[in-house]
């Protein structure tokens, strides 16, 4: 039974189709990366999962409940960290943490203290004096100190420094060790690469790619750089080979995983002196889907 399952979800705001037949599955115990640029529909999806927005059509189940109808019951079993944390300016951070915990149905006191220490957060400051990063820490501590089954994190680290980012990653791992599931919306690709078991990439309200990182890599081209004794010829005619370029006496090319074998068979005939092969980084995977918006037209 999936923790989150979304089928063919549609949400429109006036004439704007924010979600256009979105499908998403988060399995128990996994950290699921939810990737996409601003405006792709990540936050809209999350708000529907939290029952803050109403879906137009499609199926949505969260912890086997209906996020709109069963909102209160479900919210006892999940914790949410918004990307843009706003707090009551005249409450202290400690008060806000306790309040969120209590409204969610309880807080692990020991965890609360430990998290405050680890995130180096002063709970006596008034919320209005916190920076964006510190407001995020308040929301993170309040969420992570709650013992729940599902954590919904909407770009939770956009204001954290690298040190705190490392703490954040350790704490997320600890959550999953305890058996919880995490939906992590992010555009910090290194964070997703470090944490996520599976990844879904959203574009214009649809999921364009979904799977484990290994699976996604498998679909993407591998970059091969090769140096041969005899001049390399004929690679451009091979199936599945793209972007062939000569660089400093070496040849750099991209090859589809299915045709890697054919390529290697071809290369050995030219006496390979050096060869490196790099699987696509998440960034490359990501850019493959957004390349046209980045370099206008795109060649991948």
């Amino acid at each position: 039974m999936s923790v989150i399952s979304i089928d063919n979800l549609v949400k429109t705001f006036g004439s704007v189709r924010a979600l256009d037949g979105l499908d998403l599955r988060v399995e128990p115990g996994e950290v699921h990366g939810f990737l996409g640029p601003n405006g792709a529909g990540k936050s809209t999806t999350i708000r529907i999962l939290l029952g803050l927005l109403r879906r137009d059509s499609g199926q949505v189940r969260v912890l086997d409940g209906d996020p709109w109808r069963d909102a209160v019951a479900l919210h006892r079993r999940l914790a949410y960290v918004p990307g843009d944390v706003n707090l009551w300016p005249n409450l202290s951070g400690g008060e806000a943490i306790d309040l969120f915990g209590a409204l969610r149905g309880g807080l692990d006191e020991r965890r609360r203290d430990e998290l405050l220490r680890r995130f180096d957060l002063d709970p006596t400051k008034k919320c209005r004096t916190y920076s964006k990063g510190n407001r995020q820490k308040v929301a993170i501590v309040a969420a992570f100190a709650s013992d729940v089954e599902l954590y919904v994190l909407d770009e939770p680290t956009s204001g954290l420094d690298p040190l705190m980012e490392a703490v954040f990653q350790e704490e997320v791992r600890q959550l999953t060790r305890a058996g919880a599931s995490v939906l992590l919306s992010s555009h910090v690709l290194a964070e997703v690469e470090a944490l996520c078991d599976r990844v879904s990439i959203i574009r214009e309200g649809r999921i364009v790619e979904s799977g484990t990182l290994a699976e996604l890599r498998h679909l993407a081209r591998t970059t091969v750089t090769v140096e041969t004794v005899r001049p390399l010829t004929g690679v451009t005619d091979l199936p599945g080979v793209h972007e062939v370029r000569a660089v400093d006496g070496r040849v750099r090319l991209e090859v589809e995983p299915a045709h890697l074998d054919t390529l290697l068979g071809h290369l050995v005939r030219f006496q390979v002196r050096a060869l490196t092969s790099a699987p696509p980084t998440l960034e490359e995977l990501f850019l493959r889907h957004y390349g046209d918006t980045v370099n206008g037209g795109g060649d991948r």
Partner: protein
Amino acid sequence: MSTFTGTGRLARLAVRRDRIRLGIWVLGTPLIGYALAESVAGLYPDEQTRLGYAETVITSVVARAFNGPIASTELGAVVVTESYLTLALLAALLSTFAVIRHTRQNEETGRAELLGAAPVGRYALLTAALVVVVGANLMAAALLALALVGTGLPVAGSVAAAAAIGGVGVAFTGVAAVTAQLSVTSRGANALAAATVGVAFLLRAAGDVLGERGAGGTRLDSAWPSWLSPLGWGTQIRAFGAERWWVLALPLALLVAGIAVAYLLAERRDVGAGLLAARRGPARAAAGLLSPAGLTWRLHRGALAGWAVAVGVLGLAMGVAGNEVDAMIAENPQAAEVIAQLGGGAELVDAYLAAMLGLFALTIGAYVVQALLRTRNDESDGILEALLATAVSRTRWLGTQVLGAILGASALVLLAGVTTGLGYGAAAGDPIGWAVELAGAALLRLPALLVVAGVVTALFGVLPRWSVALSWTLLIAFLLLGQLGPVLDLPQAVLDLSPYTHVPSVPATDPTLLPLLTLTAAAAALLTLGLVTYRRRDLTV
């Protein structure tokens, strides 16, 4: 780059942001002035009636405290005395809020930081706000002068009267420029500036109460406390009397002083910082905070305490002043007529007390609106989103807010009745008896406040984006209908649009059950509409 670079652009931005607010302000001021001048001309058409009016003002402490002095028996002087307080308070508060909106609020939201990173001078933001607000005051005053001349009043007096109102706005522009530097929050800066308006009102009232009959016998010369108050200065110009133009230098001087102090403070502090430092809070929440009701109490207790102090002080003052009503009425049938109209007939003291309780109920409507719109502000700030992502249902949260606002309003209404009764009884005898009677009478106004709560809740559910503007507009409409409706002789059907028209004017009339039940039913229907639509709609930024 000078310290003023970008001022022009920022001023245009401020005008663009506030084009509707500024438009209502600049056009509304002359409209209200015109309407009041016309109606006063109808009420006091000849020298005889105006002599009576002047006599009332000079002899009655109540009239002096609330309307201020009178400069002569000219029609224009009566118009000024009747309209000054309304227009001056509007100018003072609108100027204050506008200055803070374009200075401290910009800093609080981080917009100032964004602007400060652009090629914009250190003083540009403050200067732009001042230029816009002073400009709006000047335009409103110019149009007001035209409107008064348009009703046939002499030019010199009309210009003086309008300049007096503009002067009040300009003076409080200077005050707000300073308070915007002091407090880190726009809420705090607004509260400081509004408190200054309150003190100015009290000083002016004290000065006029202590004033004496002036030369010729038809003029009131205020005592010295009036001269300490920017609200007092406007009356000391003596429009339509022997105008004292030099008094206009006082608000200008305050503006200049305020600007100088504000620049000095702005120079010495960081963006976002204030002079009143933010205090630390507890590391753990008290058990009482950890529920929707606890949080609601925490969020509203400060405002409620402020309201309670204001209502209590005003209640005592109004009550004490009530002892003069009889004396004043004996001498002045016109004033009696006005009070009887406001109070709905009957014994004059009762009519007066009923009119005061009615005023309190109207004012406390502002508390209800303010308290309930907090939820809308939380929604657009994103706080509500985080809150509703916990195990608190929408119905429970909004229900708590509505209940909190209604309980707060009930407490304030009760306090108004008790303090007015104590004040009146202190001189008339039997303070406890009066307190009990007026507390009961005051509570009968509650159904009208329930309707106000219902209207705001329904707007929040149905038209969230418009709910702030519409709620305040409706409350002001109720206020104008209640205050100006009888004076302007509006048809009953129009007056009936306000819930305040329907509450029985106790102690001037006997309590009747039916309108209270109707109002409560209407309130219940509106509240239900609000709760149901809110439960079914998307959260809207």
